[in-house]
């Protein structure tokens, strides 16, 4: 009897022996080479329109697999919408944009590796993307080292434009302190004075929690407790079960599946009947609403974007944005969701970069400093480039300010409660560029 059962004759036919002949190897190699060659012969879509004009290389790192993949997919839709629209409209400075996409698998180490590849091997002219704050923070020093402009399109961690700010990184949309300043008066004035905050216990969740604690206190409210829940926890019931006592509102800071879990499990435990439920807009984005269902009725969220055609958002440019985004989302998701804030901020982020490139007559990396100067203090006007409203990209910290929306979820739909103008979301700059 053989020492290992696998070596027994009866076990031999249980798996393929794995023999590869030279003929088979050569045949497969020829087929692969043919397929690769054929792909190279097919011109890129922009070649037809721009002839020999050298394209700008725009890199985008997104989490297309791993825990943040669903958000990364919609974020990429926003980037592609903007690039397609720019190329269709004649490009930037007469040159098309070539989009180079990298999947960082929702991991910071992979993010750094992929960023390095985009910068060194692909020699990108600029980068627009990011989703998870820890990945954005991990990659920021690389853009600085290679002197390439980095447009953050989703990451919300406060320190990106405060203590860890970089001359090369811009965030052309809101951040937690602005959101908190916008939401604070409504929370304390119309929902209740005493709040308990439950948050995702990592970079973004912690900094957002700090901002809301400050905003609630500043408006005369009180924080009775905070609960940090580890990132990725699917069942929060043991932790939510501990929350009790006399207070008015329960505020959640989560995104994706954890946002869904927080709202549904708070309902299941009767917490949303006892307390007013509110939270960061990331908890109830349009791709999460079907899973939340009626359990989310009454949830009040604050967001930079709400996909509704009402009030200040009932404009022709917002309608055009929706008309472009909805079919693209339908193509990647049969349920046909409305665009979320990730689609919006990626779309507008690339448009901000476009305007900066036009203003600075950007040619490539050698003009990075000119591009930075053009982006600093950039005023973005409401229109097809910025369908959600005017924005200002502050020079001192590269942080933008825009109008914020307070909304309520009812019957699986958004209803805007209040629009906070961008002037009321401004907070002092807290950045010193190295």
């Amino acid at each position: 009897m053989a020492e290992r059962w696998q070596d027994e004759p009866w076990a031999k036919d249980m798996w393929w022996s794995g023999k590869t002949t030279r003929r088979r190897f050569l045949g497969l190699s020829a087929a692969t080479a043919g397929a690769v060659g054929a792909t190279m012969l097919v011109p890129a879509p922009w070649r037809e329109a721009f002839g020999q004009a050298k394209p700008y290389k725009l890199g985008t790192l997104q989490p297309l697999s791993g825990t943040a993949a669903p958000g990364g997919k919609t974020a990429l839709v926003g980037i592609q919408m903007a690039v397609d629209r720019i190329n269709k409209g004649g490009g930037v400075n007469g040159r098309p944009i070539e989009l180079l996409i990298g999947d960082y698998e929702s991991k910071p180490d992979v993010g750094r590796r992929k960023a390095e590849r985009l910068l060194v091997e692909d020699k990108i002219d600029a980068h627009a993307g990011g989703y998870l704050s820890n990945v954005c923070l991990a990659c920021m020093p690389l853009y600085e080292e290679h002197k390439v402009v980095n447009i953050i399109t989703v990451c919300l961690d406060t320190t990106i434009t405060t203590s860890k700010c970089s001359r090369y990184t811009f965030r052309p949309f809101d951040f937690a302190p602005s959101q908190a300043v916008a939401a604070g008066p409504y929370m304390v004035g119309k929902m209740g004075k005493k709040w308990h905050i439950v948050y995702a216990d990592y970079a973004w969740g912690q900094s957002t929690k700090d901002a809301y604690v400050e905003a609630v206190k500043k408006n005369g409210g009180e924080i009775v407790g905070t609960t940090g829940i580890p990132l990725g926890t699917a069942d929060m019931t043991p932790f939510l079960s501990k929350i009790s006592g006399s207070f008015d509102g329960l505020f959640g800071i989560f995104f994706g599946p954890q946002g869904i879990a927080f709202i549904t499990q708070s309902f299941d435990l009767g917490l949303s009947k006892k307390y007013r439920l509110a939270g960061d807009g990331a908890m109830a984005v349009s791709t999460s609403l079907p899973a939340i269902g009626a359990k989310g009725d009454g949830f009040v969220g604050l967001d930079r974007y709400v996909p509704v055609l009402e009030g200040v958002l009932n404009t022709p440019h917002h309608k055009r944005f929706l008309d472009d985004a909805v079919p693209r989302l339908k193509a990647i998701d049969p349920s046909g969701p409305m665009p979320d804030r990730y689609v919006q901020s990626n779309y507008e982020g690339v448009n901000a970069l476009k305007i900066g490139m036009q203003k600075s007559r950007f040619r490539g990396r050698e003009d990075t400093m000119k591009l930075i100067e053009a982006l600093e203090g950039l005023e973005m006007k409401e229109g097809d480039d910025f369908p959600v409203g005017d924005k200002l990209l502050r020079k001192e910290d590269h942080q933008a300010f825009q109008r914020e929306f307070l909304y309520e979820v009812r019957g699986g739909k958004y209803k805007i409660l209040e629009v906070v103008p961008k002037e009321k979301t401004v907070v002092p700059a807290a950045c010193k560029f190295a």
Partner: protein
Amino acid sequence: MAIPFDQILIQTVNGLVNGMILALVASGLTLIFGIMDVVNFAHGDLVMLGAFVGATTIAATGSFWLAFLVAALVIAVFGAALQASTLRPLLGRDPLTTILATFGISLVLQKYALWQWGPSARKIQEPITGQFAMFYLEYPWYRVATAFFAGAIIGAFWLFLKYGRYGIWIRATMQDRIMASAMGIPVPLVHTAVFAIGAAMAAASGVLFGPLGGVTQTMGFDFTLRAFIVVVVGGMGNLGGSILAAIFISLLEAYASIIVSPSQAVIVSFMALILTLLFRPTGLFVPTPSSSGACWRCRRTS
């Protein structure tokens, strides 16, 4: 520091409920390891796929129970095909090969789910609504029912293994593959069937958990990690040990959350894992191999 009685009782219920769902996931995982020596890194993704199949069936039929059955059957057939096409050819090779293969399958399944269903999360409507008062909380009946469903499935499977003809085949194959083959048991078929059963159990837990946290492409991650802790603490390949370990780990985390922060409470299960590996690598709930014949896998490897 005095711990309030209501907290202890609430967390006991939480621990038992979570423990039973986890036991259902882990029992499939441990069964597959016990019979094939395959550490299935794609098990959490089978949970996710089952939940998506369930959500799709509910959207079409409106019936939770039909969705539960369809998901278990579809994923069982899929699991059988997966085992026959991908894992069977690797049997007997270096264990690292199967680990890498299942890891690859996991990535493919995640990408498939994202491609097939898109980034939107799906809803599974619970068949039992309503809550009962438990101190300051309203506790959902569905959570309690979930623990019973999971217990019933595990119990039925236990009986099948103990008394069913094919259950005896599985036990025989677990104990000694060569002898089982010599006795006329079709060992490769048993392997495929066990993988299918494990996959069906994963799908069943996905559908049961769906109403509690929504159906998302990433819902399997948390399950996979926790199920692996349970399988190691319970004793690799030991079904009874895994069930006890699932309840033990869930109760431990639930009680820990009374006195420490959630992040620290989660660490407790990792500590249990490290301590088990250091002081009792065969598993906490496994009798020492020579003292009893209760653990089939231990007997086989001894």
